[in-house]
C-alpha cells in the first residue's frame, strides 16, 4: 500500500494518488477505494471523483477539518484494499453503425481495410476508467494499438451526440452535442446522459463496454 499518496488539493479537497499509469489494476484500486470511502462516510465528506490513477475527495472544511479527513483516509489505506474487489461494474453492449467521417482516412493511415478497423475496435471489452469532459462522457480503454490515432489537429466545433470517437488508445461516445477533437468512426443511438434519469448516466467508472457493429441503428 506504500504507493498511495495523499495531497492537499485546495482547502476543500484531497487528492489520493493510487498509481502513475493507465492500467486496469490501478483503476480497480481507484474504484475499490471509492467504494470503501463511501461505506461509512464522515459528516462533511463530499463526493469522491475517480481519475485514471487517483481519487479526488471533496469535503466541507467548515464541517470537518482537512487534517481529520486525511487521518481517516490514511487509516483506511492501511487496510488491504488490493485484496478487496471493487464493486462489479455493469456490462453494456453498444450497437454501433460504423460510418464516421474519419473512418476511411483512419483506415488509410493505418494501412488497414475499413472492415479490419471495425473488427479491431469491436473486438474487445473496454473498461470505463473515468467519466469527465462533458456530462456522461466515459473514457474507455484500452484500444488495440493498431488503430490508436491522434486527436484532430483542429477540433470540430460541434460533434453530434452519439458519435463514437477514438483518441490515442482511448475510445468513447459523445453523450451530448459538444466541441470535440477525437476522430469519429461511428455512431450509436443509445442515450448516455439524461439529467432527469437516476442515475443520469448510462456508464459509471468501473463499468465494462463492448461495441457491436450493426448495419442499421435500431
Amino acid at each position, binding site marked *: 500500500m506504500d504507493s498511495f499518496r495523499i495531497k492537499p488539493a485546495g482547502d476543500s479537497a484531497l487528492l489520493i494518488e493510487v498509481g502513475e499509469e493507465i492500467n486496469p489494476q490501478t483503476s480497480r484500486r481507484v474504484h475499490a477505494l471509492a467504494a470503501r470511502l463511501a461505506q461509512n462516510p464522515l459528516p462533511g465528506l463530499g463526493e469522491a471523483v475517480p481519475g485514471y490513477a487517483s481519487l479526488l475527495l471533496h469535503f466541507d472544511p467548515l464541517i470537518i477539518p482537512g487534517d481529520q479527513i486525511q487521518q481517516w483516509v490514511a487509516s483506511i489505506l492501511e487496510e488491504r484494499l488490493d485484496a478487496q474487489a471493487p464493486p462489479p461494474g455493469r456490462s453494456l453492449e453498444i450497437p454501433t453503425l460504423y460510418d464516421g467521417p474519419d473512418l476511411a482516412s483512419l483506415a488509410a493511415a493505418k494501412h488497414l481495410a475499413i472492415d479490419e478497423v471495425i473488427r479491431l475496435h469491436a473486438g474487445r471489452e473496454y473498461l470505463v476508467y473515468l467519466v*469527465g469532459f462533458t456530462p456522461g462522457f466515459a473514457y474507455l480503454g484500452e484500444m488495440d494499438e493498431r488503430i490508436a490515432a491522434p486527436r484532430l489537429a483542429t477540433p470540430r466545433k460541434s460533434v453530434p451526440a452519439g458519435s463514437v470517437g477514438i483518441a490515442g488508445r482511448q475510445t468513447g461516445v459523445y453523450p451530448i452535442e459538444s466541441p470535440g477533437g477525437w476522430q469519429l468512426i461511428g455512431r450509436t443511438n443509445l442515450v448516455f446522459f439524461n*439529467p432527469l434519469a437516476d442515475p443520469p448516466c448510462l456508464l459509471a467508472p468501473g463499468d465494462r463496454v463492448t461495441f457491436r457493429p450493426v448495419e442499421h441503428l435500431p
Partner: protein
Amino acid sequence: MSLQVLVSKGLLTVQDIGRRGWERFGVPVGGAMDGFALRAANRLTGNPPEAAGLEAALGEVQLLAGQDLLLAAAGRGWQLRVEGRPLPLWMAAVARRGELIQLLPEDTPGWCCLAFSGGIQTPLILGSRSTCLAGGFGGLEGRALRPGDHLPVGSHAPLHALMLKAGVSLPLAARPAYADDLLLHLIPGPQADHFTAAAWQTLLTSSYRLTPACSRMGYRLAGPRLEHCSAADILSEGTPPGSVQVPGDGQPVILMADRQATGGYAKIGVVSTADLPLLAQCPPGAGSVRFAVTTPAQAAKRWREMLAGLEKQ
C-alpha cells in the same frame, strides 16, 4: 407566474450554489460565479444559502414583478432600480406587483446576483437549480433567459410582512473587498513538484493579467512563463474549484464554476475558496492577480470568517 423577463442584453441565468455529487459522472458543479454574493442576497431576503436566484453578466436586465416581492442584489459593477428608483446593492428591497426591476451594468460590470424571497422555483435537476449551459439542463430549459420567459418565485408573503424586512443591508465590513489587483491565496499542489524552483519564484513574485479569455469555465491569465520540470500533461484527474492549471505554454488558467469535472493539465496550486468570489469579480482584460502561499487550515479559517460576516446584518 411571478417574475417575467422583459429585457436581457447579456448572460442571464438561474443559479444556486452549485450541483454537487455528480462530478464522477462528468457533471460540472456550476452555480453562481460569486457564491458569496448569492449567499448574501439569499440571507437578506430570508432564504437558505442554497436557494436559487438570478445571475446577470454583461448587459442590462429588466424584469416585471408579477407579485409583491422582497429582493436583494449583490455583486460588483451593477446598479439596481425598482420602478426607476435607484437602490443600493447588498440591501433588501420590495418590488410591488406590476413594478419594473432593472439591473444596469456600470463601466466594467462583474457578476450580479439577484435573490427573491422564497427563491426561484424552477425544477431541481440532480439536486440543483443551477443552469448547466454545456449540458443544456437546469435553470429554465437549460439555457440563458430571454425576454418573454416566466419564472416561478416561492414567496407569497403579504406586502406588510415584506416591508418589515426591506432596508436591511449587509454591513460594509462584511462585503467582499473587490479590487482590480488581487492577492490570491494559493494552496500548493497537487502537482506543485511538476514545476521548477524558478517557476515557483516567478509565480510568487510576478503579477498576472486577466486576459479577455475569461468565462464561467475558467479565467485565463497572462504573465511570466511558468516552467515545468516534468510533464505539463497529467493523467486526467478530478479538478477542485480554483485549480491553477498550467498547460505546456506556461500560462495559468484558473478553473471556475463551470469547470469540467476532470482535467489533464498539471495544477501548480489551488486558489482558496474565500478568494474565488473576488477573482470572479476581477475584470477580464484589465484586472491582475498576484499569488501568496497559504495552508488549507488558514484558507478554511478565512472562508469561515467571511461567511460569519453574513450573520451580522
